[in-house]
C-alpha cells in the first residue's frame, strides 16, 4: 500500500485498529473510491 493511501486511511485505522479484520476491507473501499491500487 502506498504512503498516500496509508495516510488517508489513517483516520479509519485509528478507530478500527483493535479489529484487524476490518483493515483489508477498509483498504478495498478506499481503492473503490479512489480507483487505484
Amino acid at each position: 500500500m502506498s504512503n498516500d493511501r496509508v495516510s488517508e486511511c489513517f483516520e479509519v485505522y485509528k478507530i478500527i485498529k483493535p479489529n484487524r479484520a476490518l483493515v483489508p476491507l477498509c483498504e478495498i473501499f478506499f481503492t473503490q473510491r479512489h480507483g487505484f491500487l
Partner: protein
Amino acid sequence: MEQTASLGYKDDMLSFEGFRNTILEDYKTAVLSREVSLLGRREVLTGKGKFGIFGDGKEVAQIAMAKFFQPGDFRSGYYRDQTFMFASGLASIEQFFAQLYADPDLKNDPFSAGRQMDAHFATRFVDENGNWLDLANRKNISADMAPTASQMPRAVGLAYASKCFRQAKHTDQFDSLSHNGNEICFCTIGDASTSEGHFWEAINAASVLQIPLAVFVWDDGYGISVPKNMQTTKGSISEALKGLEKEEDTNGIRIYKVKAWDYAGMCEVFEEALQTVRETHVPVLFHVEEVTQPQGHSTSGSHERYKNPERLDWEKEWDCIRKMREWLIETGLTNPDELSEIEAAAKKYVRDCRNKAWDKYHAPIKEQAAKAIELIRGMIVNDIEKFNHLQKLAKDLERNREPLRRDVLRTISLAMETAPLSPSIEEVTAYYTELLEDSKKLYNSDLYNEGPKSALLVEEIKPLIPFDAPQVNAYEVLNKYFDALFEHNPKVYAFGEDVGYIGDVNQGFAGLQEKHGANRISDTGIRELTIVGQAIGLALRGLRPIAEIQYLDYLLYGLQPLSDDVATTHYRTKGQQSCPVIIRTRGHRLEGIWHSGSPMGMIINALRGMYICVPRNMVQAAGMYNTLLQGNDPAMVIECLNGYRLKEKVPANLLSFTVPLGIPEVLRDGTDITIVSYGSTLRVILDAVERLQTLDISCELIDVQTLLPFDIHHTILESLKKTSRIVFVDEDVPGGASAYMMNKVMEEQKAFQWLDVSPRTITSQPHRPAYGSDGDYFSKPNAEEIVSVIREMMRE
C-alpha cells in the same frame, strides 16, 4: 438504487463514518433483497405472480461481487442474481415486482417488458434505431435465460470480445465499445448446473483463449433436490477443475474458494483476483461455498421434501445475512437496535415497492375492463335472456378485482357472440380489435428488428459481372469477397474450426489470416457450442462475427444457444439488445450420414428470430453476407457443400451488391408447372427440367433463396397463377422444409384456389443419406424421380 450515492463520504476522503455507512448500506441491500424473496414468493402463492424464482441465500456474496463490477463490464448470469442487480444499481425493487407480475410495459419492467419470468435481467445495448450505445461506459447485463448453463457459451464470447478489442488496431469505431479490452465478463452459475457440458466446454475454451472471464459458482449443495455428490466428481467443482488450473508457464484458469457468508473475506479475494483478470486476461473461477437457499429452489416446491432436519438447521445457522449481522455486532460497527431499525424499514420499503408495481401493472387493465363493462352495458338487445347474459358478463368482469387482459378480451368476445345484432356492435367490435392490436405490440413484436436496422429494408443491387471475367473456382469468389470485406470493415471477425491457418476446409479464407491477422481470422477448438458463444458475445458488444460451423451436420452441437439465446435475444428484450451473429456453414449434399445433411425443417423451426439463407452458389452467398451486414438481425448462411469447385465469375462490385431477403428468383420461365426449391437441389432439378423440355413440359423453376423470410411478395403465387401446378423439392426429410414451403404458399398466399392438381413435395428419404454415389442417389431426390413425379402430375 444508486450504488455510490449513499456511501457517506465527506470531501472525497474515506472516513470512519463513510466506511461504516458503506457496510451498513450493504447490509441494508442484503436485507431488502431477502424481503423481496420472501414477499415475492407470497405474491406467487397468492396468485398475483405466475412463477417465482429468487436469490435468497446468495445476498452477501453478490454484494461483494457487485463492488468490483465496473462500467464497461458485462454479466452473463442466471436467475439468482437479484441482489447483484440491486447492489449494482441496475434494478429497482419495483422493477423486480413488475417483472414478477409480467408487466408488458417496458417502462415498468425494463428487462423484458413482461416477456420473461422474474429475475431474468437485461440492460439496453442498442437505441430505438438499432445503434449501439456506449457500452464501454455502462454496466451491461446480457439478457438472462432459464436453461441451465446456457449463460456459459455467451459468457465466453463476451469475454473474448475484450481480447479482440485489446488486440485490435485502434479505430474510433471501438471507442464507445471498449477501453482497450479492460472489460470483464462476470458469469454466475449454480453449482448443479456445472454438470452441464456447456460449463466444461466454456471453462476449457476460456482457459485456452485466455480471456477476462470471472465465473462465480453459487454452491448451495443441491440441484433442486439432487445433492452435489451426485452431481460433481469429488462433490466439489473446484476440486474437479484442478487439472485446468493455471500454472506459472501454462494457460489455464485461476481458482479460488470463498465462503458465501464471509463478507470481508469475499471482498478481499474478489478485489485482488478481479484486478488480475482485468490486467492479464487470465480467467478466474470463484467457488462460493456454504451457500444456503432458505426458501428452496422456486415457488414450485418445498425444500423440506429433500433436505434433512440437520441440513435445514445448518442453513438457518449459516444464513449469510445472519452471519453478516453477527459480524457487524462483533466488530463494533453497529448494534442490534440499529440493525433492527434497518430490517423494519426494509420490510416496509419492499411492501411499498410491491404495491406501486402492482398498481402500475394493473392500472391500464382496469381502464380496459371499465371501458368493456361500459360498452357491454350499452349493448341493446330485445331478448331478455340475452340481456341478462350481457348484464352477467359485465357484472362478472366488474367483480373480478384483478382481471387480466385476456379476461377483458374474453368477456367482450362473449358479449359479441351473445348480441351480434346489437346497434352498438360496431363500436364493441372496434374496441375488441383495438385491444387485440395493442396486445400484438405488447406480446408479439420485435422477433426481428423492425426499424432502420432491419435487413429486409436492404434493396437489391445486382452483381456486376464483367463480360470478360474469367471463370474461377467458386470458393475463390468467397475468398476474394472475404479479403475485401476484412480490408473494409474492422468490425468483422471470423473464426471456427480450421478457419485460421488453412483458411477453412474449403479455402474461403485461404491466405487471409496472414493478411488480416490471427486476431481477426482465427482457429478454434472442436467446440461448436462455444464457437456460437464466441459469436454471441462479439455480436452483443457491437462487432460483426462470422462464426463457422464446419458442416451443417455439426450444427446440432451449437443449436441450443442459437435457438434459446440468439434467436430470442431481440424478442426477449423487446428490442433492447440485438445479436447480429452470422453463422456460416455448408451442407445439403456430399457424402454419407454426417456430411450431407439438410435438416432445414429442424433449423427453420428452431431458429425463428434468425434469417435462414440458402444460396445456390457462392456469388449469391456473398450478396447475402452484404445484405446481412447492413442489418442487425442474426442469420445463418448455408453454402452448398458440393459447390465450391463449380465455376463462377467474380462480380466487380463485390462489397456493394446485395441479395434481398425473402425475394425468390425465377431461374427458368415456364408455363406447365412451378418447381420451388433452393440450394444444391436446384442443379439436380435443372437436369430434370432440360429432360422435361424435350417431352414438351415447360417448367418454371424458382429459387426461394431464403427460407426465413419466405417469399414476402408472393412471387410463387404469381407463377402458380400461370402454371396451375406446383411441386416443392428439397433434400430435407418428408414433412420438413418442403412442407413448410407448401404451407406458406397454400395458406399464407392462398394459392390453393389456383391449383388444377394436388400440390406435391419431393424430398429425401426419411432416413439419413447412405454413403457412396448410389447411397446418395437412392437417399436424396434425383432427376429421374423429379421427371417421373412431374409427368404424373401432368397426366392428372
